[in-house]
């Protein structure tokens, strides 16, 4: 009877999902309701979780509820702690959900809502979730080892070294990109700049409150911090209306870039308890609340998508970033579908909290599904805007022109009507001077989010408050990524430099702190500066570079996973990780080829350098030529490094399959769990 009910329910889910999918995919020329996307996504996630992740659990990983996890065997009350599965789920989701799944889908909406949505769903269910789940379980079976350690153990020293170098490279590029998002969101915006500037003293205040006034009451301090931030948002309006104060907080992109570089250095060198930890708590608090609020807003409002399913820009001539739908939609979506960065979390803190192996399915596969749902919400937020408005916000001045009238005429000529007065009135309603050329995805997402929120709560009168709330929400956790990322990269460099000069490895030795922090900040600061000075807005070159680096890290993670699956004598099921790996290799290698060698100057770095070299000689031109050549070299080095891992892994696979290489996996020995007995008692 139960089986009959189950079959009926799941058949209904499949039929509903297919019907909604047809509605989304087939309807052309008329706006559709966002609810269709929500239904397709929910059905895909339910089917993927119920059937695919269960298949992986049973047939490939053979999850063993009787095997003790490192949290149980090595419990020390610090890193290794047996924790409730839903608590670990929350912890893992809070760590993996960053700005990427919000920004990537907004940028990818230039192709229309359909390509991005399809990749977010298919990529997550068949690729991203699988990667996170498999790496988490493999790490649990290896005492919580990191990805780089597993790469070294299973594919050899070269694999370990490349994974290590790839992590540093992706961190540097990631930090530059997220800093550029903040710069573009805050330039010429006194309200936004004031609000974000205020989060620094608020975080410091929280740090002191936690340390001196109410030790350890983090939730209390975070609530207080949140209220103060809300006050700063309201105060920002007053600042923006005061001519003198507005002048102080109206900053150019270059000034903001310099301030963020200085901030990054200070945050990396200051004690953790004073700035980093409180800001991290505050950002997580705001992030979890806002994502839940956005989901509720979309659910209640069921907004109409004005963006068509496909736009003319699938041919590669898009203003937001250049490049055809293949491979650039996959590179641009990045974290919303597959994120190499997640493999660092799945092999970092999370495996040390898992109580039972069987819970890795919920935490690894399930949390990535939740992140993918965030990406779907972002694409909905971008697609509820009128396409003309979307392109007016996201197109750089170098493409559409700086004057509002010129930009509006250019965008309208593409078939997406918009007028300068319409944009002016929209800018006024969100409390900004102008919304043209606000590249980077964050302002477009904030307008979309404010649109959804204001229609649910407060009406047009609160549009400006919601817009700045959205900007604060994005900037707050982008700055958290910046703080934490700079510090993590600093530790990694200190760890590497200790082989050259041992005192440099001492994490509390100030000369070492200043040297390594300065180096990390200089590296991402250079790319940030390059992005700020880029006449095409910076995102055209930096976001694809970030996407390529992120997907290459996923390639390394999937190489490790495939190697271990083959070594576990489950080669016939290795396609589960091999197919996403093969897809990512084809996507990233094609994208890299285009970014380096494509003859179109807006796509190929070398073609852009050649075009600039043919123009008038000037110091600014010389710098742009150098930057483009540097980007080409960075892309080539990344591809070369990952090629080495792929080749090394292939050698291991062939050796194991032919029987010429030992197929020993480096798992910790089996120890029976005592938790099941304790829980029953």
């Amino acid at each position, binding site marked *: 009877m139960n089986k009959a009910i189950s079959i009926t329910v799941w058949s209904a889910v499949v039929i509903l999902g297919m019907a909604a999918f047809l509605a989304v995919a087939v309807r052309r020329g008329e706006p559709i309701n966002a609810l269709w996307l929500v239904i397709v996504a929910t059905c895909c996630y339910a089917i993927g979780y119920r059937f695919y992740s269960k298949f992986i659990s049973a047939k490939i990983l053979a999850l063993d509820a009787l095997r003790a996890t490192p949290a149980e065997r090595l419990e020390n*009350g610090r890193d290794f702690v047996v924790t*409730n599965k839903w608590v670990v789920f929350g912890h893992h989701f809070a760590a993996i959900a*960053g700005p*990427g799944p919000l920004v990537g889908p907004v940028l990818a909406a230039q192709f229309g809502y359909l390509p991005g949505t399809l990749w977010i769903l298919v990529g997550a269910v068949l690729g991203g979730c699988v990667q996170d789940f498999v790496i988490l379980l493999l790490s649990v079976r290896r005492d919580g080892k990191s990805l780089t350690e597993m790469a070294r153990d299973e594919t050899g020293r070269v694999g370990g070294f490349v994974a290590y170098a790839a992590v540093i490279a992706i961190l540097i590029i990631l930090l530059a990109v997220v800093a550029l998002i903040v710069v573009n969101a805050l330039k010429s915006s006194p309200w936004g700049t004031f609000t974000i500037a205020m989060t620094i003293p608020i975080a410091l205040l929280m740090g002191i409150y936690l340390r001196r006034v109410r030790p350890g009451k983090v939730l209390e301090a975070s609530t207080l911090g949140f209220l103060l931030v809300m006050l700063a948002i309201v105060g920002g309006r007053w600042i923006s209306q005061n001519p003198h104060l507005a002048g102080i907080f109206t900053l150019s992109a270059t000034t903001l870039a310099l301030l963020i570089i200085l901030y990054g250095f200070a945050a990396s060198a200051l004690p953790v*308890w004073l700035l980093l930890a409180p800001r*991290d708590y505050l950002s997580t608090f705001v992030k979890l609340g806002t994502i839940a609020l956005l989901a509720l807003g979309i659910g209640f409002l069921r907004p109409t998508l004005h963006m068509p399913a496909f736009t003319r820009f699938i041919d590669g001539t898009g203003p937001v970033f250049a490049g055809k739908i293949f491979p650039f939609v996959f590179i641009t979506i990045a974290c919303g579908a597959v994120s190499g960065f997640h493999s660092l*979390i799945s092999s970092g803190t999370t495996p040390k909290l898992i109580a039972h192996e069987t819970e890795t399915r919920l935490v690894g596969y399930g949390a990535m599904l939740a992140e993918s749902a965030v990406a779907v919400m972002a694409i909905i937020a971008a697609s509820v805007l009128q396409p003309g408005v979307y392109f007016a916000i996201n197109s750089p001045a170098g493409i559409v022109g700086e004057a509002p009238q010129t930009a509006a005429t250019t965008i309208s000529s593409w078939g997406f009507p918009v007028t300068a007065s319409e944009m002016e009135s929209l800018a006024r309603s969100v409390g900004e001077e102008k919304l043209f050329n606000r590249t980077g995805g964050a302002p477009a997402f904030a307008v979309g989010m404010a649109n959804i929120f204001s229609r649910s709560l407060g009406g047009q009168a609160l549009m400006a408050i919601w817009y700045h709330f959205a900007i604060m929400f994005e900037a707050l956790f982008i700055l958290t990524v910046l703080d934490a*990322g700079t*510090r993590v990269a600093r530790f990694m460099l200190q760890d590497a430099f200790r082989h050259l000069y041992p005192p440099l490895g001492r994490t509390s030795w100030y000369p070492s702190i200043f040297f390594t922090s300065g180096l990390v900040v200089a590296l991402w600061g250079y790319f940030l500066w390059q992005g700020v000075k880029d006449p095409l807005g910076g995102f055209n070159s930096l976001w694809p570079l970030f996407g390529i680096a992120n997907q290459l890290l996923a390639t390394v993670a999937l190489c490790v996973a495939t190697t271990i699956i083959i070594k576990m004598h489950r080669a016939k099921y290795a396609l589960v990780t091999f197919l996403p790996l093969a897809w990512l290799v084809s996507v990233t290698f094609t994208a890299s080829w285009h970014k380096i060698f494509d003859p179109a100057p807006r796509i190929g770095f070398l073609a852009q350098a050649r075009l600039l070299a043919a123009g008038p000689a000037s110091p600014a031109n010389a710098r742009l030529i150098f930057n483009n050549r540097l980007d080409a070299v960075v892309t080539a080095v990344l591809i070369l490094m990952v090629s080495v891992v792929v080749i090394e892994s292939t050698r291991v696979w062939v050796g194991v399959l032919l029987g010429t290489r030992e197929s020993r996996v480096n798992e910790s020995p089996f120890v029976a769990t005592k938790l099941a007995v304790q829980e029953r008692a």
Partner: protein
Amino acid sequence: MRTISKSVRIVASLLASALREIFDESAYRRFLVREQLANSRESYARFCRERVHSISNRPRCC
């Protein structure tokens, strides 16, 4: 009705536990138990010192 209120209580307590874990309040409580200390500025400062490496080494994803 009782089943619903019981389910709500379970969900609320799980949510509170997740928040306490994410925000390190549980970690601090475990620290106090392990070190047999009372809550004080000094104890929290010691906890922060002990956690400094794991907190500052915790990457935040993109």
